């Protein structure tokens, strides 16, 4: 049921690598910075306590690369919102905490899980990524990596740009393409 790979599904961006485990939501955006509906304000404080220079260096279309259990802690959706607002087109992680993972997809920020295999992606490398197919090419050193694929319901949410558009379109949840369901 996977969609055929298409040229425009590929993203190209520059990597920012923090290969640390358990980067929690407070380090993605501190609680004191979340009490706002102004997305540009959130962007300014993305990863503030982890790397105060990140928000300044981040460019639109860049890619964040992180370790295990990224986004553990709070349910704050401001965490993926801040990263997206700071320009991140995608987050590649060894694994993600579950609420962060859902929140990212729900706001239309693709997240790819690459597991524990060693990789040589370094800050400044240019990556080309087909998020739906789970293919990552590091154009700076020629290495390629594969990521786990999203379940169909999450792909559907992501394709429309997030859960708001999904529910506007379908009016309710549907589980097409799952075992035991019609597609």
């Amino acid at each position, binding site marked *: 049921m996977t969609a055929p790979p298409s040229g425009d599904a590929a993203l190209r961006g520059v990597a920012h690598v923090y290969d640390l485990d*358990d980067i929690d939501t407070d380090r993605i955006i501190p*609680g004191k910075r*979340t009490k706002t509906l102004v997305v540009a304000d959130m962007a300014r404080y993305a990863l503030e306590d982890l790397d105060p220079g990140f928000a300044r260096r981040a460019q639109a279309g860049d890619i964040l690369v992180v370790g295990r259990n990224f986004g553990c802690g709070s349910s*704050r959706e401001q965490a993926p919102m801040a990263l997206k607002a700071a320009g991140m087109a995608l987050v590649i992680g060894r694994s993600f905490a*579950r*609420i962060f993972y859902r929140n990212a997809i*729900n706001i239309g920020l693709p997240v790819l899980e690459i597991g524990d295999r060693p990789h040589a992606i370094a800050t400044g490398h240019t990556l080309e990524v087909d998020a739906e197919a789970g293919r990552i090419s590091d154009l700076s050193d020629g290495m390629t990596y594969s990521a786990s694929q999203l379940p169909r319901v999450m792909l559907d949410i992501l394709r429309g740009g997030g*859960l708001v558009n999904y529910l506007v379109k379908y009016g309710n949840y549907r589980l097409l393409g799952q075992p035991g369901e019609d597609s």
Partner: protein
Amino acid sequence: MSNPSGAVRGLTVAEKIISAHAGRAVRAGELVIARIDGVMATDATGPLAIVAFSEMGGKRVWDPAKVSLILDHAAPAPNERVSNLHGMMRAFAREQGCHFYDIGAGICHQLMVENEHVRPGDLFLGADSHTPTYGALNAFACGVGSTDLAGALLTGRTWLKVPETIRINLVGRMPSGVTAKDVALKLVGLIGAEGANYRAVEFAGPAIREMSLSPRMTLANLASEMGAKTGLVDPAGLTLPYDFVPTSPDPDAEYCVIHSVDIGDLRPQVARPHSPGNVSPIDDVLGVRIDAGFIGSCTNARLDDLRAAARILRGRRLAAGVRLIIAPVSRRVFNHALADGTIAALSEAGATFIPAGCGPCVGTHEGVPGDGEVVISTANRNYQGRMGNPNAQIYLASPAVVAASVLAGAIADPAVVAP
């Protein structure tokens, strides 16, 4: 789910509760669309949920009697920006006719349980990561973000993957001076901050059968720090002010992991900076100098927690140069503690009371630590920057350990400070 060969195993609590809400028998690994019994959002997550609900085309929430909005994360408002967000939530609650708890009523999770908005066997979504707390009631309660919550407000349903379950059997009786917080911290250290990611955790054992609701809430609450989708406390021995039908796992339920943890000689536990999984027995950190203590949060600020602190602090004074901030979990708890003299004992010892609510646990206001300061707290997270300053160090412990430590000016064993 049975078949003549007997090959199909029994069901976990999570599988039973989700099956009852999906309209079909489901097992771990399946994706389902499930009916929801209740939802709640706070001032940290509600405003974004209201915006998303409106963007989804939402006009009326699916069932206002099943929706609660709470002002607890930054309440009373520390500035005009937050005050305006509070105003937005008040207006939405008025328009929709849903339950609404204004500043000072208390922390969302306590209010959901105290006011019976969540009951045993429910499937509940909360836009706060400590929503698994209601597993103390034997409810499947799950934390979500604002947009998922908006989807639930619109449809009364959500999609989810039925989780595998980790079973934790506690063996032995809790030694005196050891609390549910110590057990929970020990388990977070054992399972790890990611160990239960995407999974449910069932807690069982004779020590739990003797627990009242409050320590059960402490235990379920810290399932969040294992990354769990939900934490479910065995309902055996649970008494509630109303009748309920407990959901127990089948004897042959299938678990992904079963841990037996002997708590018979457990020591008080402390989580060191900067992770709730960085846990050690108190003996490894005795004497660490502290600047402040905090008794509060959805983990440990109920009546039994305040009384445990008062037992140690009554008739004594905080160590010179040390401060203690207390945020009772709810106004109801505050009023009980006022009536029975607990508040007076703590205040006379030098504690500073702040309104019922999340207080400094979320680092927004009411006690942000200074650079280089060390805080010992009854809360659930000690991430770098959690209390509002990345240059502070936070230790997590039980109310008794916090009380002993603010007396000593350093991390101290309550059995030594106040035998």
